[in-house]
């Protein structure tokens, strides 16, 4: 019935947007009916009003956080992909470096955040470092998984073509790893955002994390929520950009999806 019509891309978009609208409607109506105080939970309308009162300022704070996130994410992708190539290509690194990285991954990275302030000061470096650290593991783990997901027959084919390591990596392993790498990058992007906010919590004079912390100090709950809204919107846009990029880079993947 409804499903039949709302299966396409546009249909799914409509469903997603309407679920958001319904969520905010319930929130708005419920807080009015139950008379929830704004200091506990402001209504969506109040949050939007707060955003509209100084949009430029929120955008600027968001810009800081965005730059930190992108720097941390970018570093994580570059270093993570390079390391995973080494791990896959150099046998000894699997049981040493990779095993070490997997073990380190169990350490809660946020707990290390204050250390970075001691090591790197209060500038943008410690925030980028935290953002990088949190995102890095998702990239390495998924990239290694992807680089190893090559069907053995494909490696046989490459062997009969007398392919050198670099050829096999570039023309076979890497494209095989892309779907997995993109999955890792999507996770890493959200984690990088978490990392920069945590960095701004620990020591900062700007960015959305700082806004939240400062507003919390004065019980300015609408401002806290306004910053969270900007964060959420930014996170969604970043995720959407990655999905778009994924479709551009892997058109064959899209063609697979159309058939099945």
């Amino acid at each position, binding site marked *: 019935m409804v499903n039949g019509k709302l299966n396409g891309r546009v249909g799914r978009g409509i469903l997603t947007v309407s679920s958001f609208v319904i969520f905010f409607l319930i929130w708005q109506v419920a807080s009015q009916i139950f008379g929830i105080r704004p200091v506990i939970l402001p209504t969506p309308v109040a949050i939007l009003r707060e955003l509209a009162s100084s949009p430029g300022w929120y955008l600027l704070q968001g810009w800081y956080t965005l730059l930190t996130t992108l720097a941390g994410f970018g570093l994580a992708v570059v270093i993570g992909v390079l390391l995973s190539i080494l791990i896959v290509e150099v046998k000894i690194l699997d049981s040493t470096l990779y095993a070490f990285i997997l073990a380190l991954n169990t350490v809660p990275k946020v707990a290390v955040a204050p250390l970075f302030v001691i090591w790197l000061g209060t500038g943008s470096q410690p925030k980028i470092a935290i953002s990088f650290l949190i995102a890095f593991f998702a990239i390495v783990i998924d990239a290694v998984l992807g680089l190893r997901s090559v069907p053995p*027959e494909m490696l046989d*084919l490459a062997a009969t073509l007398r392919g050198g390591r670099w*050829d096999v990596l570039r023309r076979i392993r890497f494209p095989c790893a892309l779907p997995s790498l993109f999955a890792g990058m999507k996770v890493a992007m959200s984690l990088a955002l978490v990392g920069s906010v945590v960095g701004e919590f620990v020591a900062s004079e700007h960015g959305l994390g700082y806004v939240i912390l400062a507003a919390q100090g004065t019980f300015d709950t609408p401002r806290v929520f306004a910053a969270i809204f900007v964060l959420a919107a930014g996170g969604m846009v970043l995720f959407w950009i990655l999905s778009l990029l994924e479709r551009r880079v892997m058109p064959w993947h899209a063609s697979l999806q159309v058939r099945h």
Partner: protein
Amino acid sequence: MVIMAQARATPEGAATTDRASAPVHVEAVGVCKHYGGRESVQALGAISLTIAKGQFISILGPSGCGKTTFLRCIAGLEKPSGGTLAVGGQTVDRPPSDMGMVFQRDVLLDWRTIYDNIFLPIEFRHESRKPYEKRAQELLKLFGLAGFDRHFPPQLSGGMRQRAAICRALIADPSLLLMDEPFGALDAMTRDQLNVELQRIWQATHKTVVFITHSIPEAVFLSDRIEVFSPRPGRIALSLDIDLPRPRRMAMRHEPEFNHYCSKIRELFEDMGLFQEE
């Protein structure tokens, strides 16, 4: 064992003289293969055979008898546990350079168009595409893929994908073509079609072909000689020259001569106990 000895002792007809005098392309002497360490499986008995340049040889045998293993040894993908194996006079210790291989599954790269898939061997040789472009077009046309060169593999049927895999194996014009049950997954109609196409291209180019199949008529239709393997560990149970005029036509499969070869192999399989009739 007795069957094999008998079969070896009565070679069917003499090889056509011109090919018998052609230079040796593949020579196996006592090639055997064990897999695994302690509980090792002997996949391949001692295989000795000689393939002349330009010959079309089929390897026929029950599944699990070591056909793929033997072909992988020729391809340099597997190291024999014993015996010697030479391609073009050189001991195989890595994949020979002048060889193309078609696998049971097409192994096309989904992220490349059919055209780009076909050029993979050229890219791996770090050669320019230019000199091969005409050949690629010819191959695409010969195998009925013209107009599909911009498609991605998932958009094609199984038969078309396997055709593309054959084009890929042929693009660099190798003198040795190894094919491991290339048509095993295809429907009978497509299979017949591809058999005819393969024969045509072989007649035009006279490559040495080692072709694995478990279809008796397919082997008889295509081959100069059929090597029938015994159940695991595979040994050569029968080496059968097929003296049928070429080009062979599909209709020949109903002629008595053709069926004579088929029933000869079928009887051998029956003697091996491979067909259990209730």
